[in-house]
């Protein structure tokens, strides 16, 4: 405990520094001026001035997801706080640890409809993991530390601390991080040992096992991902990952089948449908993954490792639920697995050894599914860039540089997930649960702040990029070399695709008529811009982009009519995938499917 009382704003800054924070993404306003004053007087914390508060939260998400640390946001009361709501919801859905400090009118004015007053704790209650309104400066230091504790423990998520202005001026005593361990919130991290043995027995007996890893693995950390990879290799079973889980198992590992779900790989979805044991790790049986629930993985027993008790048995009945931290539980599974003598899988590759003939048959089946080559697409006219081709080239020309990829939301996002192959966690940042257009650019900004020398690319659509385009100005201010790779089809492509498949090709409001000139727009923001429309110019343009030391917008004009496949139409099952345009007539979307999003 520090001897001298200090003002609330100084307590806030001291708490941030003691929590190991080095950067805050924010935007000032009346209610937080005391904090900005304290920021001004110190050097330990860097403040990144965004151009809209929504950008601050996504930037903090990008920072958090590419480092495993808590992202920190500072915004003013009223409109500052309400602008942050989309980002908070995004962070809640994707379990991103964020601490968001919001200014508030002084305590004596709360409830008075004061200038720039909003019921921030009321508005953010359903879109945060937890929130606080600080009413006494004596509680401030503890609440600040507790906010970090809650944001990062258990299933991570966003926490709001609402700070009335009088509290920021009031004098109080600072207490250290040790006071921030919540008095009762202790998520269970170790699973029940009896259940571990049950799981091991199931895995050993399985003829057609499949691992299904998700974002929880990434949240649990690189060590958890390494254990996961080790277990997959020891068991010698195929493995699929969710959109949020990409990178948890190296994509180059022969056990990896690719992404699962609505736009996942044919082999992944067929394997989910046909497996006799599904081992879910840090994944949540989201509707984008399961397709029609009553047809989901009908012949499998299910093991599910998750830190969140409400994820277990939520959508799908689980035979062996393992409540705990992925990394801890995988560690326990690994040691239990090693206790029994088992046929060795060849290091780093599939041996087909474990489990004998049945396992061999399973791998043969998987190879047959793989042979369908579900990402194959028609190259089409030689003067037209196919979006898939653009991403294939982007991946090929950047993979050596170990890039960090963020995305916006739409077709380009799904193609990026399909065509980029991630060998490590923390390199793929996308808005999965909420599907927030406008996420990618500010997220890339946050990633670049955390990794100043890395290649950071926002794979964007021309519609999404306009949702937070103002952040180009932040990128300019801090000289961040963020690359924006726009797949420009002039359509809200994903909307157009659904209109084509579900609404008789009536393209209601999905075409953008007056798009900006992205080259001039880049120029206006002090970045370099280039437009490319011919396949034979593409490689050179990509090279120019990655070799340019500054921010860069590459506007790639792509085929406007291309649809994203494979696709499980809404309301359909995994074995009812559409593999390409020629498939769609056979499987019209059911009436039940029409109402799903």
């Amino acid at each position: 405990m520090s001897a001298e009382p200090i003002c609330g704003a100084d307590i806030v800054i001291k708490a941030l520094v003691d929590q190991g924070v080095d950067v805050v993404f924010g935007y000032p306003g009346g209610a937080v001026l005391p904090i900005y004053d304290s920021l001004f007087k110190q050097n330990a914390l860097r403040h990144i001035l965004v151009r809209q508060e929504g950008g601050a939260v996504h930037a903090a998400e990008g920072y958090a997801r590419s480092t495993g640390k808590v992202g920190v946001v500072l915004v003013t009361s009223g409109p500052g706080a309400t602008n942050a709501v989309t980002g908070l919801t995004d962070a809640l859905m994707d379990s991103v640890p964020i601490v968001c400090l919001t200014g508030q009118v002084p305590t004596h004015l709360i409830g008075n409809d004061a200038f720039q007053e909003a019921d921030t704790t009321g508005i953010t209650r359903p879109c945060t993991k937890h929130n606080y309104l600080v009413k006494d400066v004596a509680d401030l230091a503890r609440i600040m530390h507790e906010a970090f504790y809650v944001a990062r423990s258990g299933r991570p998520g966003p926490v709001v601390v609402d700070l009335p202005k009088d509290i920021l001026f009031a004098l109080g005593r600072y207490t250290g991080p040790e006071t921030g361990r919540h008095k009762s919130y202790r998520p269970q991290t170790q699973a029940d040992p009896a259940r571990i043995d049950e799981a091991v027995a199931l895995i050993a007996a399985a003829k057609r096992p499949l691992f299904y890893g998700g974002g929880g693995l990434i949240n649990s950390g690189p060590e958890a991902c390494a254990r996961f990879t080790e277990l997959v290799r020891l068991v010698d079973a195929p493995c699929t990952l969710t959109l949020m889980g990409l990178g948890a198992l190296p994509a180059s590992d022969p056990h990896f089948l690719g992404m699962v779900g609505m736009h996942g790989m044919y082999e992944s979805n067929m394997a989910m449908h046909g497996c006799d044991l599904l081992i879910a790790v840090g994944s949540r049986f989201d509707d984008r993954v399961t397709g029609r629930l009553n047809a989901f993985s009908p012949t499998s027993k299910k093991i599910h490792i998750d830190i969140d008790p409400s994820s277990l048995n939520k959508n799908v009945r689980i035979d062996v639920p393992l409540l705990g931290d992925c990394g801890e539980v995988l560690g326990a599974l690994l040691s239990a697995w090693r206790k029994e003598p088992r046929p060795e899988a060849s290091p780093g590759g599939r041996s087909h050894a474990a489990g004998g003939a049945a396992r061999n048959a399973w791998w043969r089946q998987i190879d047959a599914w793989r042979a369908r080559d579900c990402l194959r697409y028609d190259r089409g006219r030689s003067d037209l860039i196919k979006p898939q081709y653009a991403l294939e080239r982007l991946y090929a020309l950047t993979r050596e540089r170990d890039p960090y990829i963020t995305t916006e939301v739409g077709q380009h996002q799904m193609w990026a997930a399909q065509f980029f192959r991630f060998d490590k966690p923390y390199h793929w940042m996308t808005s999965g649960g909420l599907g927030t257009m406008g996420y990618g650019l500010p997220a890339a900004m946050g990633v670049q702040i955390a990794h100043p020398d890395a290649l950071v690319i926002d794979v964007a659509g021309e519609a999404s990029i306009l949702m937070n385009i103002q952040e180009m100005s932040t990128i300019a201010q801090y000289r961040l070399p963020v690359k924006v790779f726009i797949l420009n089809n002039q359509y809200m492509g994903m909307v157009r695709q659904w209109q084509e498949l579900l609404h008789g090709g009536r393209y209601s409001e999905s075409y953008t008529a007056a798009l900006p000139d992205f080259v001039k727009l880049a120029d206006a923001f002090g970045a370099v811009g280039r437009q490319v429309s011919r396949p034979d110019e593409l490689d050179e343009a990509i090279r120019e982009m990655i070799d340019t030391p500054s921010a860069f917008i590459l506007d790639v004009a792509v085929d406007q009519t291309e649809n994203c496949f494979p696709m499980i139409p809404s309301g359909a099952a995994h074995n009812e995938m559409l593999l390409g345009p020629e498939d769609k007539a056979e499987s019209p979307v059911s009436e039940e499917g029409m109402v799903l999003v």
Partner: protein
Amino acid sequence: MADPVANIERHTIAVLVDNEPGVLARVIGLFSGRGYNIESLTVAEVDRVNSLSRITVVTSGTPMIIVQIKAQLSRLVPVHKVHDLSDEGPFVEREMALIKVAGRGEARIESLRLADIFRARVVDATTESFVFEMTGASDKLNAFIALMDPLGLVEVSRTGTVAIARGPGRF
């Protein structure tokens, strides 16, 4: 999960929470936001020293939904414990109601007679009205209130259900 509708069960769940601002809003918001039923909900501080409140909520749903409700409740940060009394053995459930009946003559005498049979207490009386206080199982309260209806029932105020497990065990 599409459980058959016939599978709907009624559960009484006790939740021990930090008595802090917003905690009730969190619990109620969870039920409304996720589309769960609330048949009754009561809350009051039960531990002054540790500042803990106890919420008793009566809800209904399929077995899978009930499990979900408990899991969702237990992951709220200020929630200490969640107990499904319906699942954990015998428990007592009680509710209190204040029932105002107005009338004269035979109806008034009849209401008093019934109150006596139901062990309701008179807590306020004027020459043309009574307020009865009655504690018991919700069904019993319902039955009494139904009987009062033709006898000049004016208004009813009910606490909602509180419940506790039988035997010496502690929450």
